[in-house]
């Protein structure tokens, strides 16, 4: 039992460090050109897809974002998978929705067990147990469903890579080991608590269920693996949505956008097409009519 306990701490550390590292990597990329897409939920005219550019003389007028609309929109994607439900014709939504909620509830289950232990909130024990049980069932249903869907539908299968199947199998293994541990051991939830308590105290608990150990070990490995995989989209999505599709910030002289872009324009280009002059920066390139004249 010692290895899963120490692995738990390692996995949490790797998970958090990698989130911060990868977040900062994305965040430090150059400011891109505007590429917003409507309807833009932060816009006051979001209900019909409008923008401030519908106004005459909009530059000097005040512009504002309604942040709560953005949060609600993003939440509807994260928690309800709204677009998959509305537009996916391959019937992926019930499985995708279940798998995502399986993962969310797995985190919630562990968080509740931590709360119970740290604050001694025994009153929430039934809720914690239900949360854990539901997480395992819906997570297994969702990941198995998605796996079968991707195997059986040729349009999906053509685009699904071995690593994608691996990811789904990985998640399925976490949920199914949990379910097996649960149905084979009447004290499953108590032993899970004992495991969490052991992690907190750095004192490995003596848990007799090897399925439970397998379950937690797989989950810990998953935490380590997730930030390196495509499943990191839970963070990347913040950038694709908030920093690309919703970024309608106007460039005004002397603004932070203006300063960033001005500095980026000093970068040199080495594109090889004849109309571009190799080695000149952006400002110099703009002054040239055609690279073939230089």
């Amino acid at each position, binding site marked *: 039992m010692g290895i899963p306990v120490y692995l738990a701490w390692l996995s949490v550390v790797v998970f958090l460090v990698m989130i911060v590292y990868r977040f900062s990597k*994305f965040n430090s*990329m*150059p*400011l*891109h*050109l*505007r*590429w*917003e*897409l*409507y*309807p833009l939920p932060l816009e006051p005219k979001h209900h*019909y*897809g*409008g*923008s401030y*550019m519908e106004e*005459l*003389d*909009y*530059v000097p007028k005040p512009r504002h974002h309604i942040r709560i609309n953005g949060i609600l929109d993003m939440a509807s994607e994260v928690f309800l998978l709204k*677009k998959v439900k509305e*537009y*996916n*014709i391959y019937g*992926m939504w019930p499985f995708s929705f279940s798998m995502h909620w399986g993962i969310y509830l797995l985190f919630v289950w562990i968080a509740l067990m931590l709360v119970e232990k740290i604050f001694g909130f025994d009153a929430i024990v039934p809720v914690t147990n239900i949360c854990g049980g539901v997480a395992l069932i819906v997570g297994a249903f969702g990941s198995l469903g998605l796996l079968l869907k991707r195997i059986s539908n*040729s349009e*999906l299968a*053509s685009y*699904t*890579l*071995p*690593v994608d199947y*691996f990811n789904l199998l990985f998640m399925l293994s976490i949920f199914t080991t949990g379910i097996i541990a649960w149905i084979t051991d009447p004290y499953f939830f108590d032993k899970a608590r004992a495991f969490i308590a052991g992690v907190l105290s750095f004192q490995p608990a003596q848990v007799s269920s090897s399925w439970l150990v397998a379950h937690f070990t797989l989950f810990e490995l998953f935490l380590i693996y997730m930030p390196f995989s495509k499943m*990191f*989209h839970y963070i*990347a*999505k913040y*950038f*694709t949505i908030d920093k*690309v*599709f919703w970024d309608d910030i*106007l*460039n005004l*002289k002397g603004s932070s*956008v203006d300063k960033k872009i*001005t500095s*980026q*324009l000093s*970068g040199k280009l080495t*594109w*090889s*097409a*004849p*109309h*571009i002059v190799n080695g000149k920066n*952006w400002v110099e*390139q703009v002054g040239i*009519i*055609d690279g073939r004249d230089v």
Partner: protein
Amino acid sequence: MPKPSVAIKDISRPGDQPLVFMNMHELMPVPNLGEEPPIEPTPQKFIDKYEMSLDGHCSIGIPKPKTKEEEDHLVRRFLSGLEKLFNSEESWTFKQALRLSFDYCVKCQTCSEACHAYLASGRQEIYRPTYRSEILRRIWKKYFTPEGKLLGRFVGADVDVNWQTVTRLAELGHRCTLCRRCAQRCPMAVDNALIARELRKLFSQELGIAPLEILEKGCVQHLRVGSSTGMNPPGLKDTVAFMEEDIGDRIGKKIKIPVDKKGADILLIHNAGEFLSWPENPEAFAILFEAAGISWTLSSEPVAYDAVNYGLWNDDVELARVAARHTLAAKKLGCKKVMIGECGHATKAYVVIADRVLTGDLSSSEIQRESCLPLLWEIIRSGAIKFDPSRNNFPVTLHDPCNMVRAMGIVKPQRLALKAIAPQFREMTPNGVYNYCCGGGSGYAIIQSFNFPQWRNKVGARMKMHQTLQAFKNELDPNKVPFKYLCAPCSNCKGTIRDSITHYGLWDKYNLNYGGLVELMVNAMVDIDRPFIEYEDFH
């Protein structure tokens, strides 16, 4: 479901055999379209000389390499360009957005059903929004990532780059109109249209490969001569003189079109294609602005009398060169604002995309940049001009140009204007930010080379024709309803719509015509005693 007929790895398949053939019976059915021209087979003279092995159509005309050196050159430069797309100096313009779209697609294919080209083609695999993205992604993994080199096929590093891959990808980059409807539906906010755009950029900026009309006769000619149409400054002055005379003939009043008027509030820049193909459109602007007492001018400065900016579709450097010259011309004249006429891509390129290219004294706070649509609605709303809607008493529907609507959120002004001046206005479905592309987006409207117009008419514009016929489905009979008007406030959309109405014979069958918004406005002006729209003329 049957296995898709074309696999990802087929992009590298040797030989001249196209990956797909377009068949009439597979195209999306369009009610009321009637008999349509058959699909012409690919001419042998093209097959012999050019790369046609994607779908038997061709927008660029890449000559087949004759030697191993030429083949290797294509491959080497392609890979070098792909690497540059992810370099912070070479491609800061879209690096972050591209990286995110590249790395986090979960391939749920939710986007496919949003794509007009995919649907209109009868769901041909190669037009699926994820098809080209996945190819590019797998190439990137294979040639540029440690996990690809280490784990190979397991992570999808399994597409070989040979010269056929490169030339097919160049064409495949031109089977997406960049309308971004797919991005709107993506649960991950992955943008396959951006990937297509960046793929084109790779070809334009690294290999100098692009459709003739977009690069050499587009941006390069625009910068060299003054306009992508080939019109030089004296040509513009002749055109203005012609338009002044034409206005006199059309409305019985003389109007002086201001050119290079120092200190005018607004520098108005039209897509110069309007001057040649639809001069009534810039004429209508002149009539409206004169009647509304607006202080405005055209510029005769090279580049600044043509609003087009084809770099939007494939080339950041050309985009920046054109946008800077538009702004410098406004500065020279002392104008407060630059307004783009009825042209979607030019409006987005200048108002939105160039916003982060034009810095300091050229930024928005120094010289404002706007679409014309809010001002057109303001002219009606304010009562500056009196309109009689009964003069437009025929069925009118509206096409939303993707660049101004989905990409800029300009949704209401054109609708409010139409509701005020066209009593039989009705929406097409879907509309607004959820509209379908006209089929000519991203330059397809102007690509007339090889057999590309056939692809545009049969696949690109098919959905728009379907929507239009649906909007008029109860009034198609020309004996009962002699005139219908598809309002498209965008030059490139109009070009596509003109060609597709002609292709399908919809003017002859149904008297279905098209045009901009300003023509309808002038047609309804109380102060003008005759119709501005020529009801018997289709051009």
